[in-house]
């Protein structure tokens, strides 16, 4: 059963994903800076080349690290290191630049942006804004001091100021959006959790009740059709059982709950659970019904082929059916154990799928026929597909 609750209410996963994306963004800007230095033919003194490159690399590594750690002082320290790296780079690169160059040159703007993006990974709006602003200020000061020391003309770097401002606006919007999405979520989570538990308890109670009613009903009918006279042993046995069940209904609940737990364990033990999880990883939600514990009665080799075929059938649903939902049902037949994979996807006309060997359903069929089983496929365009796979009881573990 999949969870019907929002997953990333606190935005932790979103923050982590933003941090990883920011590492890429920062790296691209720093790499572009390096390319621009080459493309512009900027002359750096021979001894200064390694220092400039080291400065750029240090800035990049410090930014990446700052996006991976969460301790505020750690982040601040790494931003200082990034600022120092940028100072080193800006100082070396601006050593021999002519008087026409200004401090707002693009080769200085790009690394500033690379350091400013460190703010996107903040755990709160305030933290994000502080990080971005501190990063921007540190990078700007580093560039201005370094270029000023080498005599470059001071100039306000409008593009970097605009980008910092843009980042601030987008961060504010992001956090505003997050707060809107969270509105009512606590109520929703509480309500959903309660409802899910109520549903599950109701299911257990209803199932136990149904079992009891069916048994008692059968026994009452048996009594009504029996001839008058002394009770027979069969009567005595079911009367004792029914009285116990009615007097101590907890026993029946235990039986039903244990059966449910047993099914979950059977799913794992039989090897069906990994197949369902694998389908889930592909985005396909699979509901399992029937009695998965029946699979444990199969010979391991037969079970392997059976589950391989089921996996293949679910892969076909993922690839061709155009639906996000499927059902796997396990049931026993008179002489067989059956597994049905059903989807309500686009389906197909039988003739259109006949063709070259190597089709997925052919290898699926071969797997099942290799263990003396049969495969039947029903499909109608627009109405989904059902694949029934059966293996004879004779191939079960008892004689396997």
């Amino acid at each position, binding site marked *: *059963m999949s969870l*019907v*609750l*929002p*997953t*990333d209410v606190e935005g932790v*996963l*979103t923050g982590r*994903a933003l941090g*990883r*994306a920011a590492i*890429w*963004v920062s790296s*691209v*800007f720093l790499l*572009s800076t390096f390319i*621009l230095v080459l*493309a*512009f*033919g900027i002359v750096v003194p021979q001894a200064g080349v390694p220092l400039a490159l080291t400065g750029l690399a240090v800035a990049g590594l410090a930014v990446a690290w700052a996006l991976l750690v969460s301790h505020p002082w750690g982040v601040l320290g790494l931003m200082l290191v990034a600022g120092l790296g940028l100072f080193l780079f800006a100082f070396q690169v601006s050593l021999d630049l002519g008087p026409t160059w200004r401090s707002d040159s693009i080769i200085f703007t790009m690394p500033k942006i690379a350091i400013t993006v460190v703010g996107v990974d903040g755990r709160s709006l305030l933290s994000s804004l502080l990080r971005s602003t501190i990063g921007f200020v540190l990078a700007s000061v580093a560039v201005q001091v370094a270029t000023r020391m080498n005599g470059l003309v001071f100039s306000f770097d409008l593009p970097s100021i605009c980008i910092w401002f843009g980042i601030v*606006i987008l961060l504010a*919007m*992001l956090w505003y*959006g*997050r707060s*809107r*999405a969270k*509105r*009512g979520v606590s109520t*929703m989570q509480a309500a*959903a959790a309660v*409802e899910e*538990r109520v*549903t599950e*308890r*109701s299911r*257990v*109670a209803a199932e*136990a*009740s149904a079992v009891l009613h069916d048994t*008692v*009903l059968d026994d*009452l*009918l048996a*009594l*009504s059709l029996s001839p008058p006279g*002394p*009770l027979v042993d069969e009567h*005595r046995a079911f*009367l004792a059982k029914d*009285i116990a069940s*009615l007097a101590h*209904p907890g026993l029946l*609940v235990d039986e039903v*709950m244990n059966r449910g737990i047993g099914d979950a364990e059977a799913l794992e033990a039989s090897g069906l659970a990994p197949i369902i999880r694998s389908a*889930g990883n*592909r*985005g396909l939600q699979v509901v399992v019904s029937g009695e998965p514990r029946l699979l444990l009665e199969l010979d391991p080799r037969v079970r392997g082929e059976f589950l391989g075929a089921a996996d293949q059938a679910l892969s076909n649903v*993922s690839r061709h059916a155009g639906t996000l939902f499927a059902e796997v049902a396990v049931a026993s037949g008179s002489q067989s154990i059956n597994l049905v994979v059903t989807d309500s996807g686009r389906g197909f006309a039988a003739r259109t799928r006949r063709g070259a060997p190597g089709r997925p359903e052919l290898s699926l069929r071969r797997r099942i026929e290799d263990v003396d089983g049969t495969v039947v496929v029903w499909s109608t365009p*627009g109405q989904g597909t059902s694949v029934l796979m059966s293996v004879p009881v004779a191939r079960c573990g008892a004689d396997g």
Partner: protein
Amino acid sequence: MSASGRTAQEIDPLSGITARIFAMAVGCVAVISATTLTLLNPQEIGSPPLMLLAFVALVAGFGHLVWAADPFRRTVTRARYGITYGLVLVAAVLESLAQLGRDTDVRNDWGPIAVALVLMVSGSYRRPREIVVGTVIAALVVAGTTVLHSGTVGLAGLVGATTMSGTLVVALGGGAAIFAASLIAGLRAERRRSDDVRRNRNVRDRRRAIEEFLGTDIEALRREVLPFFRDLKLRDALTDGDRQQAAELARLLRSSLARRLADEPLEGLVGVFDDPLLLAAALNTEQRTALRTVLSHFAGLPGRSASDLSLVLGRGGVAGGGAAGGAADGAADLPAERMTGELVAAFGAERGPTAGIAPFVGLMQLAFPHVDAHPTRDAIVIRFDF
């Protein structure tokens, strides 16, 4: 849509609420940047009509995205995002053509900025592979337009110009792809973890289950049948009277079972429940839970109760033509065999019905394959199929 690989918004529609606000902000930033850069560099415009067309395409592109990202709709589909992406790409090309021969500095072109921004917002809406493809195409287009303006400046100059114009596209496009891949992987892992936690929780609910079991119509069974069975066991003999009583108890039990089967728990949560085809039986646990949660939310609003709610289930367009009375514009799009539902929550005029419901629509979208919400002046209509 292929089942393999869903977008972040499809896995967790709540992220779509944040993403839409983000898309609106990014759209504004794109338009403001374009306007500012155009006003600051009027001398570079060679063809004002082309520039005007570029603006129209840009505004239309982001406007379409904001419309498509409405949290009451299912998702920003590939086609819907494709329209936005295409329009912004066209805007970038038109902006470049409008400056043909007069573009002295590619650094102040807004085309690449707009393209980069439209790629940036794709992180929540599209799959990583699609974003990568979009980034490569955008980088080629931006490089092409840059070459168009810098054809005579030599290789170094060309490299410099394309780096300046392409960096933002590669940075934000690649960043969006990484964001999407990381978020999707995280959401899936989190969902699996939550599933495991819940599976292990059921055992603790045994006592409550027994209480509920005792609270069901088993009580009548215990009252009627238990004394009869005890008496019979004590006497150890069956009389004609016992046989008649057994037949009568069986008849009562059968009719009680039939009544219980016809009971629909959702019925008690709404004022009007219409399910002539008994389709509620086909709702799975997730869908029931989502419906119950949304109904509980509506009924729990100040001044509202279950009597303000209606739930209609039907096939194809049946539900759409039911209680909501014409709110089901999309009913014709649904295949006839689909089961559909329509939940109507009526509100007084004093309260905006859409206030705060987006997360609940998102919850519905987690459980149902298709959900549409139609807010009206004094009600909200949520249509779903299952």
